[in-house]
Structures are given as C-alpha cells and as structure tokens.
C-alpha cells in the first residue's frame, strides 16, 4: 500500500465526505447559491487554501489560546493598564470593542452560513473553520477588554452602543450589508475585500500601536487573531480566483462587487485612519504611510496585476481613496472631535507635539486646511468653551458617516451627491457611495440612519440627554478627554503611585 500524500489524505478527510443527494434535489439542499448569477461548473476545482484537519486545528488553536490567556491574565493581575503610555490611549480600545468586536461576531455567524449553504465541501469546511476563528476573535477581544472596562469608561455597554450609537451604525451597516447579500457577494465583501484587501490597514497598525503604547494584552490578542487572519486571507483570494476561473460570465459580476466592497470597506477604514493619527498617544506610522505600504504597494502593486490576468481592474473610485490619503484622517477625527458630546469616547485637541507630527506627516494638507481649525478650537477653549457642533449632522445614505468628506481635488469644499428614487431624495458623501446606492436603491433606502431616527423620535426622546441614555452612554463616557473620568482617575492613580 503506497502512503497517501498530504493532499490526498486531506481530500479524503474533507471533500470525500460529501455525496450528491438522491432522495431530494441537490439544488434544494443549497437553495441560496444560484440567485446571484455566479456560475460554478465544478466545485471539484476548488483549491483548498490550507490543509488543516479538525484535530490539527484544535491542537494549534488551543496552543495559541493558552499563550494568549496567560498574557491576558498576567496583564490584568499585574495591573498592566497602569503602564500604558497614557489613559487617552484607551479611547482606541473603546472604539475597538464598540465597533470591531461585534463585526467579528457577525462574521462568525455568517461564515457559519457559508458552512451550510455553499455547494462545495472544501469551501464549506474552510468557512466552518473561519466561523470558529471569528468567535475566537470576538471572545478574546471581549475578555481582554473586560479588564479595561473595570477601570475605564466607554466600554460597559458596547452591545447596546453598537446597535444604537450614530458612529457605530457605520460598521454595523457595513456588515449588515454583507450579511444580507448572497453567499458569493458576502465572500467577496468579507473574505476578499475586507480580509485580503483591507484588514492589514485595520489590524497591523492598530496592534503595533497597542504594542508601542504599552498595551501588551491588546497586542497579543491582535497578533494572535492575525495568525488566523492569514488563513482567512488565503480563503479570500481563493474565492475570487475560483469564481473568475469557473465562468467568464462571473467576471463582470465579481468586478462590480470588488468595486462596491472596496469603497464600502475603504470608507469604514477611515475611522481607523482617525484612530491611528489622533487616538494613539505614541504614533507608530501615519495613515498615509500605512495606506501606501499595505494598500498601494501590496494590493495595487502586487495583487491587482495578478488579477488583471482574469480581466479584473483595480477598484472603481480607487483614485479617490488614494487622493484622500493626504487628508481623510483629519476630516474624520474632526467629525469625532466635534460630536464627542454624543460619543462613547473622549477626544481632545492634539498636543503641540502631536500637531508637529501631523504637520510633518501631512506636509501638503495639514497646515493649510486643518491646523487653522484646531487654532480656532483652541481659541474657543481659551475663552472657556469647547467646540461642539450643536446640530445633528447630515449623514451619507450608504456609508452613514457624517458628510464631512470633500470634493475630489478640493479639500476645502464639502462634497455633496444626491439621487432621487421613487420620489424621495438621498444624499451621499462621494461618487463611490452614490454609485453603490444607484446600483441597488431598494437595498439602501432601508438604512436605519441614526440622525433620521432621532428626528422620528425613535431614539429615547428629543433631547441630547434622552438620546444618550438610550445609547447607553453614561456620565464620563463622552466629552473632552480633559474633563473625562478616565483622565481624573489616571492622574489620581499616578499621583498615588509616586509619579
């Protein structure tokens, strides 16, 4: 008997488990895999992106978690949070548990859906592994951040916040959009556009930032999660290639999805841009540098020439994202700064040192467009005030971010786009978001836009305190960092500590 190769053995342990049903029609068993128009002729051509069996998976994952929880425990027991660069760093962690962990959870559930609803056994098994990975990520994040929650504001009611607070409808609607799509579009959205194209922009700089700012627990869960992420990236790339190779008719459909989900994902990462450039007391790299390294160099320079072989072009609207790398983080943080009274984190005017770093990192835009705004905010503060925008902002119908983005080629002019559909007007922040709406207006008219819901009286009441209470935002969660309970506690702990 000749010994089986790793590939043959893996095949027998996964795909060979499958059989074609005869007592019921096969298409009844997988009723969701045809309506999107993607044609798959041979699931047998699927290349397994990695060859882990269940026993090996459990073994390696158990080992990873053993290490991870040891770090989490020792960080908590050793009061590691006191060794952070500054308490203001924790605002990045708040954004993470409110905005990112719930997405991990959504991915967990919906990769479970793929593990049920794809026709190919190889693809189902890879999805099932990912479904488990994603609940791992959600839970290791919750468990790590649980320790911060004991000492800092803004994290105590993240579940409710994620579903209700205005800026968190940005990530939630993004994932709801993906989950409500068919299985192939979901994979293009999450496995490919999010996990392969953009995830590095979210995780790698964030986790390096955590490390640099003394947050070893977050760095550890982040990097440990990323080790799973490399499997997810492989799945994302395999999915795209598989669809493209199976039928030429799939190419325009996939191109459309890449166009849509690049822009959708890019808009979401602008929140990360603001976090990187403004939330971290000690900076690792600027958004612009990260974008150049992880997106322009690796994706536009590396991946898309590979996909050109199949007739796939770089995403529509990519030029706009490239232009925005010079200023988008400033625009988004400026939004967060002036609506901090309604947010579950604290912002503040960047220190002189941070301002100098911003000037240096963004030589063509920061001093010209954004420093004057900070000067004005400083002047207001010098007069005993704090600049808060007291009107609710206009939201983009698609990305749901307040419409603070500017016209292509003119960072001084807010960009407005508008479509009319069945007698109603819809507003957009960009050509990209408008294009997405116009493709599928029936979908985006349903959006639960926080500002419009507040005005309908669906968010706890008519006053700011009513809405904040309904959001789960308690005293100390919001407002400027200077007056935050986090700062007060931090100063007290460090004064006692003999600093």
């Amino acid at each position, binding site marked *: 008997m000749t010994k089986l190769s790793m590939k043959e053995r893996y095949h027998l342990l996964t795909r060979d488990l499958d059989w074609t049903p005869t007592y019921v029609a096969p298409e009844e068993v997988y009723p969701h895999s045809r309506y999107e128009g993607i044609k798959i002729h041979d699931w047998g051509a699927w290349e397994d992106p990695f060859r882990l069996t269940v026993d*090996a998976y459990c073994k390696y994952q158990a080992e990873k978690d053993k290490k991870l929880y040891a770090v989490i425990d020792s960080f908590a027991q050793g009061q590691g949070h006191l060794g952070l660069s500054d308490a203001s760093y924790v605002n990045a962690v708040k954004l993470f548990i409110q905005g990112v962990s719930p997405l991990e959870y959504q991915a967990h559930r919906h990769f479970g859906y793929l593990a049920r609803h794809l026709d190919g056994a190889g693809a189902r098994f890879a999805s099932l592994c990912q479904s488990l990975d994603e609940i791992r990520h959600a839970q290791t994040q919750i468990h790590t951040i649980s320790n911060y929650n004991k000492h800092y504001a803004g994290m105590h009611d993240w579940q409710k916040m994620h579903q209700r607070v205005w800026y968190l409808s940005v990530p939630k609607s993004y994932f709801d959009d993906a989950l409500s799509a068919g299985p192939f579009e979901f994979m293009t959205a999450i496995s490919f556009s999010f996990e392969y194209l953009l995830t590095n922009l979210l995780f790698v700089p964030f*986790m390096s930032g955590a490390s640099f700012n003394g947050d070893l627990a977050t760095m550890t869960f982040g990097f440990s999660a990323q080790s799973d992420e490399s499997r997810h990236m492989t799945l994302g790339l395999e999915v795209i290639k598989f669809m493209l190779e199976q039928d030429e008719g799939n190419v325009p459909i996939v191109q459309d999805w890449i166009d849509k989900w690049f822009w959708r994902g890019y808009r979401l990462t602008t929140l990360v841009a603001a976090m990187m450039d403004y939330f971290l007391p000690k900076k690792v790299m600027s958004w612009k540098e990260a974008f150049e390294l992880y997106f*322009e160099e690796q994706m536009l320079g590396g991946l898309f020439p590979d996909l050109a072989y199949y007739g796939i072009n770089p995403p529509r609207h990519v030029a706009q994202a490239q232009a925005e790398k010079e200023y988008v983080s400033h625009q988004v943080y400026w939004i967060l700064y002036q609506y901090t009274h309604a947010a579950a984190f604290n912002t503040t005017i960047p220190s002189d040192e941070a301002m100098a770093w911003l000037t240096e990192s963004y030589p063509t835009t920061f001093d010209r467009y954004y420093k004057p705004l900070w000067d004005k905010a400083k002047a207001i503060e010098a007069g005993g005030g704090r600049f808060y925008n007291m009107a609710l902002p206009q939201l983009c119908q698609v990305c749901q971010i307040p419409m603070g983005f500017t016209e292509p080629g003119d960072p001084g002019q807010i960009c407005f786009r508008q479509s009319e559909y069945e007698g109603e007007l819809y507003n957009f922040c960009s050509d990209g978001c408008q294009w997405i709406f116009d493709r599928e207006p029936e979908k985006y008219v349903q959006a639960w836009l926080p500002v419009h819901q507040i005005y309908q009286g669906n968010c706890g009441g008519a006053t700011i305190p009513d809405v904040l209470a309904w959001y789960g935002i308690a005293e100390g969660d919001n407002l400027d960092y200077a007056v935050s309970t986090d700062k007060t506690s931090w100063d007290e702990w460090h004064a006692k500590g003999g600093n």
Partner: protein
Amino acid sequence: MSAPTTVRWVGVDLQETDATRAIVEAIETDNADITIKHFPGMIKIQSPGPLHINRSTVEEKYGRPWETHEFQLAIISYAGNIANWDDDEIVIKWEH
C-alpha cells in the same frame, strides 16, 4: 497618486518573539534580496521574488523537528498568494 511600483513585492509579517527568530533566520538563509523592517512587536519581511520557507532550514535553525503547520503560530499577515503549503515548504508568490 499611486507610488510607482515596478517591483511586485511579496512578503510576510511575523510576530517579533523569541520563537519566530529561527524562522526569520531560515527565511534569510533561503531567500536572496529580502528586506526586513522592524515595527513594534512585528517584523515585516519583503521579497522581490517568490518567498520560500523550507522545513529543513527552519529545523536546522531550531535544532528540532518543525511542522510547516507551526508557521501559523508566527504569521501575522502576508502579501502575495500562498502557492504551496505542504509538509516540506511554504511558497508565497504572485501567480501572474
């Protein structure tokens, strides 16, 4: 504007820990022209051509048996396509 990219880099990001040092050394041994950048907690390795991680070299550096599956404990991210991942080697490259 996009930075003009003539070289199509592939690469891996690895956790910077004692346990990954042997892997980094093995990569350095088996791949010419790589560049290594250090970030907090992380090492970024880039190569202008296909990147090979060979089991035998890693085992030599560790001085113990090493399964290619164990690479999963070290990797944070990568750029390129995992063209092969079997018992003996992992190859990352662009296909087209």
